[in-house]
């Protein structure tokens, strides 16, 4: 049985529309003008038990809405979903014992208290007995390297430190599925790396399945084997992360520098010139369309070469290409 399965899930928000100014407000009071926003439009996907699944998409794509439906705090307009065998919006409380969630943009630790106080509170809320709770806290403190931070009031922690505590808190009751909505938002490179390593470690150690949204391709690349890309509430791509890269790997970017000045109208057939300078150029071509050899010989023929760099697109670029392609 998959940990999460979603079939034809839809969510339409009714949003009150109101004209500007006082008159608009008054009119909206008498005759509210509703505008519907289709946040999720027929999503179907599955996540295996213990899987690390990337769930990405541009702003407003419907990621958070989907996650809220999966935690049971939002009712879908139609469609089915099962998380660990529960229909989330019907069995929210029962499900709560088995899933953890982190909404990166909202803190859940008590701001004025040390994190350990929230940990003990959660222990009670999840009905853990005291000795297991103690062992669990010390285990998580070690895994997340937060032993020294636990006694400090949360308001005095850095964002990166706080985020590690937040994720640790969501794992206290040893959930089988973790829903992470942008956990790495606002973190620096090092903090991101640390958080990724810990999430990966918890996944290996306890087999907790993770549905991860992020705007950082690096999170997806290091953590997830499989990725689902959505835009405008619909799935536009789903496959292994490696396949995603491979598929676009045929696009090469070439940077050349010459020892002499380049002809201003320098171009090669089948190659897109991104930038042509006086002593160099940047260009892009797809090896499936344009063979490599004539490009290389064309480059050599154009003058005395000083340097050549050939690069493949980063995952980030691949993803933004997909976003753009589906922007219709």
């Amino acid at each position, binding site marked *: 049985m998959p940990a999460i399965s979603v079939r034809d899930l839809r969510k339409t928000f009714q949003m009150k529309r109101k004209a500007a100014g006082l008159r608009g407000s008054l009119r909206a009071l008498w005759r509210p003008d509703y505008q519907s926003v289709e946040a999720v439009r027929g999503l179907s996907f599955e996540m295996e038990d213990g899987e690390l699944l990337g769930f990405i998409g541009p702003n407003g794509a419907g990621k958070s809405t989907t996650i809220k439906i999966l935690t049971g705090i939002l009712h879908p307009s139609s469609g089915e979903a099962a998380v660990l065998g529960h229909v989330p919006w019907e069995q929210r409380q029962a499900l709560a014992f088995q899933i953890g969630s982190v*909404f990166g943009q909202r803190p859940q630790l*008590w701001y004025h208290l040390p994190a350990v106080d929230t940990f003990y509170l959660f222990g009670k809320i999840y009905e853990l007995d005291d000795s297991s709770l103690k062992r669990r806290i010390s285990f998580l403190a070690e895994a997340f390297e937060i032993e020294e931070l636990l006694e400090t009031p949360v308001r005095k922690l850095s964002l990166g430190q706080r985020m590690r505590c937040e994720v640790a808190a969501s794992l206290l009751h040893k959930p089988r599925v973790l829903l992470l909505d942008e956990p790495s938002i606002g973190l620096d490179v090092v903090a991101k790396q640390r958080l990724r390593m810990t999430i990966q470690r918890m996944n290996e150690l306890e087999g907790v399945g993770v549905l991860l949204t992020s705007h950082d391709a690096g999170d997806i690349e290091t953590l997830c084997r499989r990725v689902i890309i959505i835009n405008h509430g619909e799935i536009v791509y789903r496959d292994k992360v490696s396949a995603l890269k491979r598929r676009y790997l045929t696009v090469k970017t070439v940077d050349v520098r010459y020892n002499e000045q380049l002809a201003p109208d320098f171009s090669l057939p089948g190659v897109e010139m991104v930038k042509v300078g006086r002593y160099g150029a940047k260009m892009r071509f797809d090896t499936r369309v344009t063979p490599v050899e004539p490009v290389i010989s064309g480059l050599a023929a154009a003058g005395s070469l000083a340097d050549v760099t050939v690069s493949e697109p980063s995952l980030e670029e691949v993803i933004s290409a997909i976003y753009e392609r589906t922007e219709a």
Partner: protein
Amino acid sequence: MRSREADVLSPESRVRGPAAAAVVGKYWAIFRTQLVNSLAYPIDLLGRSLAIVLFMWIFMNLWRVTYGATGASSIAGLTLADTMWYLMMAEAVMLSKRDLSETISEQVKDGSVAYLLNKPFNFILYHFAAGLGHSLLSFGGNLLIGSGIVWLMVGPPPGIMGWLFAGVAVALSWLLDFCFSTLIGLSAFVVEETNAFRWIYQKFLLLLGGVLIPLDFFPAWLQTISLNLPFAWIIYGPARLFVDPSLARLGQVLLQQGIWLAVFGGIVWVTYRRAVARLVINGG
């Protein structure tokens, strides 16, 4: 590591024994955490409790002049000392109300309500426990400081029965206020701005609840109206019982509180069920 930790949280690590104990345990923990949280800023807590000193000083000057002008030792059955002790209790109750409606509205508006709905506890009971943790401390502080100052002004407080009866009535009054605040807070699920409701509720308490003046001083028709509305039983009821702890009055106060609690408790419950079903969570 795996072998050592794999079994740390087997299903058996859930609290053993009657399920009720675990349930009470979690709300108790919420209450206690809120209590500790309020203590995080003791100076702030003390500062807020000092507001009652200012109020009592103003009331003292006002009513001393009034009693002096009429020349009577009691008005509508209340001496100056009674009036001051009444007002002290009324203010202590009023000032230690947590603005729960605002808390809930904020949580709904900024989306943090998501974290309260995806935990295994009841949202209303969570706020009940947390609100109690919040109010208890400030009520204690207000009562202590308020009593001190009023004692200096007009002499000793009512006897032990006054404290006892008022204690019971204050507890029920807190529940009644909890119902109103929760209703206003829950309305944030439907309308965007709840400030208007909050403002109206506050004004009703101030004017018809007996916060500024014992309702006994009102003209008869206004008294009748006030006493037939729930607001009087949040403030006036407990405060009046404090200075006149008769069994008859106790019966009247508890009956009124009980009726209004049944009515508004029911409304809260139904509203909550419906609000959660049509829940819209903002942000993210």
